[in-house]
């Protein structure tokens, strides 16, 4: 999504506008939710950091809609637009989110996999689509894709594939009247409060609750699920040993079993399996299943 934000930011500058784009990283490992912000203006931008009330929210993974730790639509007002990579249609998204504003929902991940062959390329598709919805010109968006993919160090064939994906991603999309409505100034009605002294039992950064990391279900991070072919599996334990998250356990007869509520889909097991007994299958969850996965 950092690349998506950079495609939009670069395209805006190529159009003679002022832009600011910024990703936010945490300390999480690969696959964790990541956000990025883009501001576009005709005058110098006097803001920094997160955007409390965005005109357009782009979501690359529809399971994030239901993640209480992410809440990507939290700042989206009723007239704001939602751009979503999902195998579900726009009507299903409207029904699921209740969002009354414009919704653009397509299987951008499927496009990326078909045209480029990597899930990461979904960021190219979404950057292009967001640029079109924001009213940035096609030449600027194309130049931005070329520039940002080159800046990632991709070889020429991968850049060409990205440009083909860009054409597929923008097909049929038209600019929305983003920012036409005055901003609801989020946070403007907050109240500044006093912070009182607390005893060190509370006021020092300690955790006394029982270990709760296992309660954090990370299965929704997965774009692909590893599936073990038990006919070919030799019970060698390699997948069990290599899994960085302990998401594979061994049954009494040494048969490996993936815990799909925890597995993040890193596919290290697939790469490590000596007899190639693990394959990947793309995840397309139903809304209900996504909810149940928590």
């Amino acid at each position, binding site marked *: 999504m950092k690349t998506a934000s*950079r495609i939009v*930011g*670069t395209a805006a*500058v*190529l159009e*003679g506008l*002022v*832009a*600011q*784009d*910024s*990703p*936010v*990283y*945490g*300390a999480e490992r690969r696959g964790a939710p990541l956000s990025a912000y883009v501001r576009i203006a005709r005058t110098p*931008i*006097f*803001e*920094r*950091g*997160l955007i*409390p009330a965005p005109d357009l929210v782009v979501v690359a993974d529809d399971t994030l809609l239901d993640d209480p730790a992410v809440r990507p639509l939290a700042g989206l007002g009723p007239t704001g637009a939602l751009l979503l990579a999902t195998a579900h249609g726009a009507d299903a998204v409207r029904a699921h989110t209740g969002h009354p504003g414009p919704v653009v929902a397509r299987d951008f991940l499927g496009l990326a996999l078909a045209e480029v062959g990597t899930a990461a390329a979904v960021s190219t598709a979404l950057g292009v689509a967001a640029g079109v919805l924001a009213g940035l010109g096609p030449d600027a968006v194309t130049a931005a894709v070329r520039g940002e993919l080159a800046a990632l160090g991709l070889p020429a064939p991968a850049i060409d594939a990205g440009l083909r994906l860009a054409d597929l991603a923008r097909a049929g999309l038209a600019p929305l009247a983003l920012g036409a409505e005055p901003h609801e*100034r989020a*946070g*403007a*009605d*907050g*109240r*500044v*409060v*006093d*912070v*009182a002294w*607390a005893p060190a*039992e*509370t*006021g020092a*950064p*300690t*955790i*006394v*609750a*029982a270990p*709760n990391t296992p309660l954090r279900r990370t299965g929704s991070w997965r774009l692909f699920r590893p599936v073990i072919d038990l006919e070919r599996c030799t019970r060698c334990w390699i997948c069990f040993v290599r899994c960085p998250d302990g998401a594979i356990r061994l049954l009494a007869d040494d048969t490996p079993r993936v815990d799909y509520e925890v597995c993040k889909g890193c596919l290290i097991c697939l790469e490590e399996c000596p007899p190639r007994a693990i394959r990947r299958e793309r995840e397309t969850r139903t809304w209900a299943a996504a909810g149940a996965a928590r």
Partner: protein
Amino acid sequence: MTAPPAMLTGNAAAAWGARLADVDYVPAFPITPQTEIVEQLARWSAAGEIAARVVTLDSEHSMLTAAGAAAATGARVFTATSSQGLLYGLELLYTVAGWRVPLVLVNVSRGVASPITLEPDHDDVLAARDAGWLQIHAETCQEVVDSVLLAYRVAEDPRVRLPAIVNLDGFTLSFTREPVELPAAAVAAAYLGPYAPRHTAIRAGRPMAQGVAVLGGAAYSYFRYQMHLAAENALAVHEEAAAAFAGLTGRRYGLVDGYRLEDAELVLVMSNSFATKGRAAVDRARVDGVPLGLLRLRVLRPFPRDAIRRALAGRQAVAVLDQNLSVGAGGITVTEIAHALYAEPARPRLLAYVGGLGGKEIGEAEFRRIVHDLRTAAATGEVPAPRLLFTEAEAAQVGALLRLAGKAAAS
């Protein structure tokens, strides 16, 4: 048609500053959110795009030793760190400043442990404020690259000869891209010229002792106070260097920076990248008819006492928003500003706030609270107690975390 400016992060801008300064040596050690700077310089060095030698050391302590030692041979040296790394190297910050070696260090601000975090406030860089390094604090990515060049020019000036820190905020500048105009290499070269010191230029055939030991206090006092006098010289040298820079690029930097100050009766004082949000707060207040302006602290060491006094004398009320915390004392810059204003007959009411710790958002409600307090102070003379900027929603968020941690929620 001129080419549009490049979209660069603050980290990329810092690396470009070192590249344009044509540095000779870059001792490095990684730390978030700084690492991209030395990674970029290492890539350029490996590709032969810059002449600098980039060497990874085993710690920031060693890194700063290497930086000072290389600078003591007359090399132009650049290095970068952040937060815990700066603190780990703190002993050497003091030590190499006394060697009078004008190297430049970029600090990417990040709150210090504990609790450990990644996002910015200025407790790291301000811990180094007494170490003998000049300090320039940048608001934008453009200012980062420009300030690295300015820093070399001021630090290397024979009237100064002290090292310099250029500070930029982690995340809000380090990873944020903005349009940046890069000075041409020839312009930067003409601006800086070659660095050819005589006071620190160890050669095999020309031995000299540097950083010698002294006892008894008199010699120590003399040499330490020489650092102070040299730092004070940097005020005038910075103004000259900034004027020369403006002549070449059209971009002018003051010791302090003002926004809508001309007719401001109330002033908000901030520094670094969150000052950009202060500009928006000034614009909102102006819409409501409130005569608010912004003063941004840019050069923190030497402390530009006169420039601050001139900017604030005669105003009705001034609110200093420190994005730092001296535990047990409060905000750091507000006490220095109070010192600058103390002898001023027309000194304003002075309000103290601490906000944005660990990169915490400073939202409209918090700025509105400051404006409310400023207006009250101007009208009644009443100055509220120093305050942490913290909202009801944030208190609720922390309360939820405390409950998750198995602790009784605080009020």
